[in-house]
């Protein structure tokens, strides 16, 4: 651990040192980051395989006497592993990407930010006491904000960075309060004492739960605390967006697990319900917003919200399971969540990298202006397709595996938790199903409209393919998506070790005889989607090929309904999601303006303008009013400092008289 962080630190210094030479600077910063990630990954794997917690002291802050402790528990190791798996390829990608996407003058700062961010996240995962955690947490926030503001000439990215800073700082405030209150009860700052679960009780416990839930919820981008996410993720350089989506939000999830699920003792059923509810809400709303989004990176950001929701849904189930003492169920749910953390990191990273390539090639992020990219960017397109399949939860890719587990958890939850509460599980299941189906629709749209048919703009028609440095990482991630889908057994075996380390969670191996074929990963092929199905599908494809083996003799234009077929007659992204938008009117509250300009008669318009937009409910009804109110109050209080010396003297007089009266009363 020390080594990894040391390398990061060194890298940062080195980056600054060679700041003048962007090219070298890129290589140095990213190279260092790769090395560090590799070490972290190795460490994580070691911890997971040999369930031994590695801990120690990172540093001592002499002045304040504060000690930075770290402890790599299996849980943190799992998250570290995810980080390592994603961070390395992203770094490779960045070498190629920053060259085009980041102005030379900012290469150094971006490189530094990149490493600080990763280092901080690692520290968050391994922190073993409150101060270290908060330290890393804040550092992470700042680094991210800096990265988001990389091209700060854009108003949008400034806004995004600030919004992010404010929201996460409010979150941090909650965390500080929670942690310190906890620490004061436990009389110690170290997690090992703090999180035994019996430090607090009564109503304080609930207060703390809320504090932590809000605090971590902001980072995890849970609705309604998500507003920063769709702003910040797109604003950052794509490789950073990939990190943010794949890694940064997992810190929030890690926190939720560490504190809300396993930190405050056995959670109460209501907590579980609350978490489940928020998770489901985030999942469904996230995907719905993604569905109508025309900016590819914003679309991905919203889908990040969706997946955070799915993961949290699992956590909620696990909490309810613990609350009702069903370790086996908790195991399945946790397995699902943690598995999904890994999967989401893989495919979301992949997709963001792909989006980066597209944006770089075309100079725009608007899906409506892509089209036909598959011809120009064959590899990017292929990898994007893999990502799209995976994220839509389709077998035999990894997205399916974890969602399958989650369904299992929900089913078992219904079977094993008594009372009316159980009805939440089928509802959750239905919502989850809806979510993944909508996700499929969303990504058919994203892939189809951007990569297929005719180019919808010059830029799209002439977009160049990304350099190999950017393609190889995508290839790697795509392979990861497939591998994680085909061999869930391996994943589950390591997960088994992680889960065994969590209190109140029965190791899934104990579930062997249950109906969960795959939850007893005794042998690798015995998983949710073993090669069996892949083989079957493969067989089917072969049959299909054999049946229609004749090679294509003629290629003819597509029939354009009599007219000639141009990009303008193509189905647009907006049109694609129109039916769903109409069906979920209640959520979107769409507004549309159609104006037809006609010279001769209204029946022969020369030009028709259409503007449709959906209402950003949360911004409009929660955040904007809040901000305005605060500002109004501030402006109102301006009179305190109105420049009149007499007023100032009056303050003193009033204070004096008040104090005197107070004293006079105490005689």
């Amino acid at each position, binding site marked *: 651990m020390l080594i990894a962080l040391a390398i990061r630190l060194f890298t940062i210094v080195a980056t600054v040192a060679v700041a003048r030479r962007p090219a070298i600077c890129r290589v140095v910063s990213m190279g260092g980051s790769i090395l560090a990630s590799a070490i972290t990954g190795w460490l994580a794997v070691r911890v997971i395989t040999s369930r031994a917690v590695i801990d120690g002291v990172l540093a001592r802050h002499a002045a304040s006497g504060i000690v930075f402790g770290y402890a790599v528990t299996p849980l943190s190791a799992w998250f570290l592993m995810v980080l390592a798996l994603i961070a390395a390829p992203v770094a490779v990608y960045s070498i190629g990407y920053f060259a085009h996407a980041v102005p030379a003058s900012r290469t150094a700062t971006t490189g530094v930010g990149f490493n600080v961010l990763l280092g901080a996240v690692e520290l968050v995962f391994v922190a073993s006491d409150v101060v270290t955690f908060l330290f890393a947490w804040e550092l992470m926030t700042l680094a991210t904000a800096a990265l988001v503001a990389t091209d700060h000439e854009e108003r949008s990215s400034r806004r995004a960075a600030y919004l992010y800073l404010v929201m996460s700082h409010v979150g941090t405030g909650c965390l500080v309060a929670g942690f310190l209150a906890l620490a004061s009860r436990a009389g110690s700052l170290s997690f090992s004492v703090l999180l035994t679960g019996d430090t607090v009780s009564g109503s304080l416990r609930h207060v703390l739960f809320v504090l932590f839930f809000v605090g971590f919820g902001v980072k995890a981008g849970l609705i309604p605390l998500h507003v920063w996410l769709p702003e910040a993720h797109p604003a950052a350089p794509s490789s950073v967006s990939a990190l943010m989506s794949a890694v940064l939000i997992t810190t929030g999830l890690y926190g939720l697990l560490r504190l809300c699920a396993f930190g405050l003792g056995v959670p109460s059923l209501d907590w579980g319900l609350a978490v489940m509810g928020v998770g489901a809400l985030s999942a469904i709303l996230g995907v719905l917003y993604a569905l109508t989004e025309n900016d590819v990176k914003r679309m991905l950001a919203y889908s990040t919200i969706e997946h955070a929701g799915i993961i949290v849904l699992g956590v909620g189930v696990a909490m309810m399971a613990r609350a009702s003492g069903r370790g086996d169920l908790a195991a399945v749910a946790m397995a699902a969540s943690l598995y999904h953390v890994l999967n989401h990191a893989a495919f979301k990273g992949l997709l963001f990298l792909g989006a980066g390539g597209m944006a770089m090639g075309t100079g725009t992020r608007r899906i409506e202006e892509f089209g036909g990219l598959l011809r120009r960017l064959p590899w990017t397109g292929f990898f994007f397709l893999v990502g799209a399949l995976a994220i839509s939860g389709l077998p035999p890719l990894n997205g399916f595996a974890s969602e399958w587990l989650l369904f299992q958890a929900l089913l078992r939850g219904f079977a094993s938790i008594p009372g009316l509460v159980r009805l939440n599980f089928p509802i959750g299941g239905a919502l989850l199903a809806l979510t993944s189906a909508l996700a499929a629709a969303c990504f058919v749209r994203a892939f189809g409209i951007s990569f297929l048919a005719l180019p919808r703009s010059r830029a799209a028609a002439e977009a160049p393919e990304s350099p190999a440095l950017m393609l190889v990482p995508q290839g790697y991630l795509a392979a990861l998506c497939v591998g994680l889908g085909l061999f869930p057994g391996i994943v589950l075996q390591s997960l088994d070790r992680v889960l065994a380390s969590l209190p109140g969670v029965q190791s899934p191996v104990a579930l062997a005889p249950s109906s969960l074929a795959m939850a007893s990963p005794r042998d690798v092929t015995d998983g949710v989607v073993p090669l069996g199905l892949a083989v079957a599908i493969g067989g089917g494809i072969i049959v299909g090929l054999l049946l229609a083996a004749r090679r294509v003799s003629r290629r003819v234009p597509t029939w354009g309904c009599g007219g000639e077929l141009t990009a303008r007659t193509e189905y647009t992204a907006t049109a694609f999601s129109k039916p769903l938008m109409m069906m979920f009117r209640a959520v979107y509250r769409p507004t549309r303006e159609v104006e037809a300009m006609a010279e001769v008669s209204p029946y022969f318009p020369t030009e028709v303008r259409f503007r449709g937009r959906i209402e950003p409910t949360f911004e409009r009804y929660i955040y904007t009013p809040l901000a305005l109110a605060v500002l109004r109050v501030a402006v109102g209080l*301006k009179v305190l*400092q*109105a*420049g*009149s*010396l*007499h007023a100032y*003297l*009056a303050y*003193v*007089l009033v204070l*004096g*008289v008040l104090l*005197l*009266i107070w*004293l*006079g009363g105490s*005689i």
Partner: protein
Amino acid sequence: MTRDVLILCAAGMLVSAYLMVGQKALFTAIRLYAVQSLLLGTVAITMAIADRRDELFVMAALTITLKSALIPWFLMRVIDRIGIHREIEPFLNVPASLLVCLGLTAVGYRVSTGFPEGTQGVTHHLVGVALSMLLIGLFLMVTRKKAVTQILALLTVENAVFLVALGITSGMPLVVELGISFDVILAVLMLGILVHRIVDRFESMDVSRLSKLKG
């Protein structure tokens, strides 16, 4: 005997403070301040005689020369130089101000009952007067717009402090006293200089106009 003198002087000082609140002519205000300081000096002398403490004589001399002669003279010069003689409309009209001052006096006296000697003994009166003077002075600063009036009010506050010093401690250590008086002079001088600069700049010494710096 001593007791009566002390109480008389104290009462006199309080009255002078009230008079300051009550009228608007700057010269009168300055004279009132001079009288006030004179009374303060008398208090000092009386105490010096009463309990044989010679350094109090020095104190008294200092007070009288400085506060009832030097400073008033200086302030008068300032006014003459500027040629503004009346305090135009204060923030609060006279009757209202007087009422408020009554209230402040009440507070001062209430507090002064908390001292070791309680309600009897001269201390009670001296401190009561002093505290109310303090508050009244501050009140003057709040309500008056002319720079000079504010200086006077400030000096009234100083007087009040000294009165307390005499009343309950029969004087601070001499060196300290000297230092303090020295500082007071300096402060007044600077205030004077600033008033000059202000008047040069703004053709007025209405400090309520100094309100550019907001927010």
